[in-house]
């Protein structure tokens, strides 16, 4: 058995890097979609309209009660049987967005509920409708509170995109699998893949830590 082989590494770094780019692309598309969708889910879950609340609850429980891997497989392989045929990237984006939005909506909900009643009272007393108060007063404060938690979820998402290899999205793990099937250089290939994930995740985690400290510092004028 040969350990990390520089020639193999050099020969395959190009395709692996292309795979990493796909991983990052997938991550960003899902981040953008789930940031918006999760907020809608969170607001729906707090709606005065009871059927909407039930629908949201059912969706969240269904997602939380089943594995992400199954959700991916389901959307890619089972939906075509009822006539919904999606390409693998779209299927991956939908599955990941649905999955992460369920969790992120709970994060948003927590953030919104953390805002004191006094803020609602003050906004109402100034003649703001509840929608305006939500948009201008409650959400800006809630979003700030949940930024670190969202960041941690997005780092987890970045790594979870690896599951999309089972529906043959050409992200970095899938790319490594294809190459390894030809040359059997598991050690070299998967070590490189691991290093790639880490070089993105680690700085991202540090950034989240920084944002968390910034948040705890409260609202102040920018010094300097």
């Amino acid at each position: 058995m040969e350990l990390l082989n520089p020639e193999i590494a050099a020969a395959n770094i190009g395709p692996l890097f292309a795979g990493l780019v796909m991983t990052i692309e997938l991550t960003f598309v899902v981040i953008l979609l789930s940031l918006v969708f999760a907020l809608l889910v969170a607001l729906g879950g707090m709606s005065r309209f009871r059927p909407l609340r039930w629908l949201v609850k059912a969706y969240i429980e269904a997602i939380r009660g089943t594995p992400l891997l199954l959700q991916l497989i389901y959307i890619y392989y089972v939906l075509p049987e009822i006539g919904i045929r999606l390409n693998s990237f779209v299927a991956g984006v939908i599955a990941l967005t649905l999955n992460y939005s369920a969790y992120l909506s709970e994060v948003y909900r927590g953030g919104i509920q953390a805002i004191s009643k006094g803020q609602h009272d003050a906004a109402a007393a100034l003649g703001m409708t509840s929608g305006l108060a939500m948009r201008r007063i409650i959400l800006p404060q809630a979003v700030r509170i949940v930024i670190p938690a969202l960041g941690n979820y997005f780092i987890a998402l970045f790594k979870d995109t690896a599951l999309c290899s089972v529906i043959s999205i050409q992200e970095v793990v899938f790319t490594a699998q294809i190459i390894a099937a030809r040359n059997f250089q598991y050690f070299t290939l998967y070590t490189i893949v691991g290093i790639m994930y880490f070089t993105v995740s680690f700085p991202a985690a540090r950034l989240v830590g920084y944002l968390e400290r910034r948040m705890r510092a409260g609202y102040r004028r920018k010094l300097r």
Partner: protein
Amino acid sequence: MTDAPSMIEIEGLHKHFGSLHVLRGIDLRVAKGEVICIIGPSGSGKSTLLRCINHLEVAEAGRIRIDGQTVYRDEVNGSMRSHSNRAISAVRAQVGMVFQQFNLFPHLTVIGNIIEAPVHVLRRPKDEARRRALELLAQVGLSDKVDAYPEELSGGQQQRAAIARALAMDPKAMLFDEATSALDPELVAEVLTVMRDLASRGMTMVVVTHEMNFARQVAARVIFMDHGQIVEEGEPRAIFGAPREPRTREFLRTVLDR
């Protein structure tokens, strides 16, 4: 009582919190430009009454008129029907409220707090709202804190900013809910000074307070509440000098003897 037209009229107001009957038939009339202080032991329903006036609490029975108009709900074909949320918000925009805990918006600067509702509720142009805000900040003595965030201010400064925020809506009346109770003793005076100044400018004010000296000096009328009812009301001289009701005497003895 004055003959001036009414700003706030309350008839037969009842409110429960669960099985607790916190307002038991309140009738109260506040004339335009009048300053009334509501005093009473904690749990007597003073704050709840104030919160009912701008519908932060919903009373089960009774009627509230503001500037001659019945607000929050109407009798339609013999049954009470609530106004739409939008109509309720429109009435609230005309009544300023100042809270015990200030409740400034922490993510906005002082001036941001003040122009928020004029710009987004009254749809005033931003520069006009800013101009008015700067005038009000001068009035409450905060011209040097325009761009500060609430967290950077003392409690007294926060409360003065909150008063300016309420005034920016050009309210017909101002409600003060124990506005100085959360303040350190040395910061109470600066807020009372602003309130006294506001009273002298002719603002209609309903002030729930534990500051008996303020009530004595500024109020045209003092209301003593206990157990959800108005027990006694009258000029400060009468209430503080010669209270008729035993419960009023008892209360004043405990608070004034401190």
